């Protein structure tokens, strides 16, 4: 009987350790603690070019993440990229003249959306569209522009 008891205790400890490890992976290693399921509200934004922005990319204000990119689609009518953002419910006071930029984290990092709040007293609500957007900077265009300017300078 004593042996059964030991086995029971050890099996219990094993199961507990396994579950703790899973919990650790879920809460501490992965981003589960940061996503709150399907909560929050949706905003839309149109961009001429989203670069390599991916679904589930972060949406930040002042470097703090407040949401995620929900979906990216192509608008056949306007030839623009239509990006849907899911913003957490706590941040419900975004002015309606907020500016949306596609930025890159670091030189080689992935792209994210940075919101720049304006000064309006009207707030954005679920389903609203952000009017002011700036597209992603594409490296080739930047280099091209840089070379063009340099060429212009030297010819003067």
């Amino acid at each position, binding site marked *: 009987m004593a042996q059964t008891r030991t*086995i*029971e205790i*050890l*099996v219990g*400890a*094993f*199961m507990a*350790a*396994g*579950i*703790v*490890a*899973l919990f*650790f*992976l*879920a809460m*501490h*290693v*992965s*981003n*589960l*603690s*940061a*996503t709150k399921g399907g909560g929050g509200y949706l905003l839309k934004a149109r961009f001429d070019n989203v670069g390599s922005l991916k679904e*589930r990319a*972060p949406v930040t204000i002042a470097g703090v993440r407040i949401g995620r990119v929900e979906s990216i689609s192509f608008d056949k009518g306007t030839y623009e990229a239509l990006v849907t953002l899911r913003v957490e419910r706590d941040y419900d006071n975004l002015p309606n003249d907020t500016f949306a930029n596609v930025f890159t984290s670091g030189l*080689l990092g992935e792209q994210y959306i940075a919101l720049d709040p304006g000064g309006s007293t009207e707030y954005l609500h679920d389903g609203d569209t952000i009017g002011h957007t700036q597209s992603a900077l594409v490296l080739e265009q930047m280099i091209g522009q840089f070379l063009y300017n340099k060429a212009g300078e030297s010819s003067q």
Partner: protein
Amino acid sequence: MSELLRQLGRTGLQALGGLGRAHLLLVGILLGLPQLVTRPRLLLAQVFNVGVLSVLIIAVSGLFVGMVLGLQGYHVLSQFGAAQSLGVMVAASLVRELGPVVTALLVAGRAGSALTAEVGLMKATEQLSGLEMMAVDPIKRILTPRFVGGLISMPLLAALFSAVGVLGGWFVGVGLLGVDEGAYWGQLQAKIDFREDVVNGVIKSLAFGFVVTWISLFQGYDADPTAEGVSRATTRTVVHSALAVLGLDFVLTALMFGN
């Protein structure tokens, strides 16, 4: 020439026959599940055999794999000035791939071969026939609890492996090589996705647990009831399990992360 073809045909038929017997056995094992629910105590000893007895080897291996990943990752990443991402690299490798796969390989070697030997010896010493003569179905009574025990233990062991590995990587990266602690954990949490990475890893290890215990039990049950037959079956368990795990890993990875 015709002899060669005949040999090939015979080998093929034998392989197909084995596959068929393995599936019939699986059906038998699964049919034993309702009975197992009424006797949960049978499961306890099997979770002990597969799970608890494998904890040490899994934890130690996980620690070393994590530490090696920390070292290697640091040297590569620091060349690009991206040592901050060390945590992401360590955790992604562990949670997505190394955790489930290495755990499955270790369990196949540690517990799978033991299962094969145990069942094979029970067959060789007529214990299975004895049970049958006592009107007890040996598949339901002996194999089903072992199967479920392996299925339960595998994801828990894989999670343990990954968790210990992440800590090992943290110890080397942050403790010895001076990566910023905040960057290690912060990047980790930002980049490792719960559904994409952790849940997929658990699904993988469940699949591996299924395959490894199935192969182990089949090889034991199908072994020639002699000492030589059992030892050959034990070898086959390790070889077949390893191949099945690696092959299945490719398929699952292609399905999960392939798009």
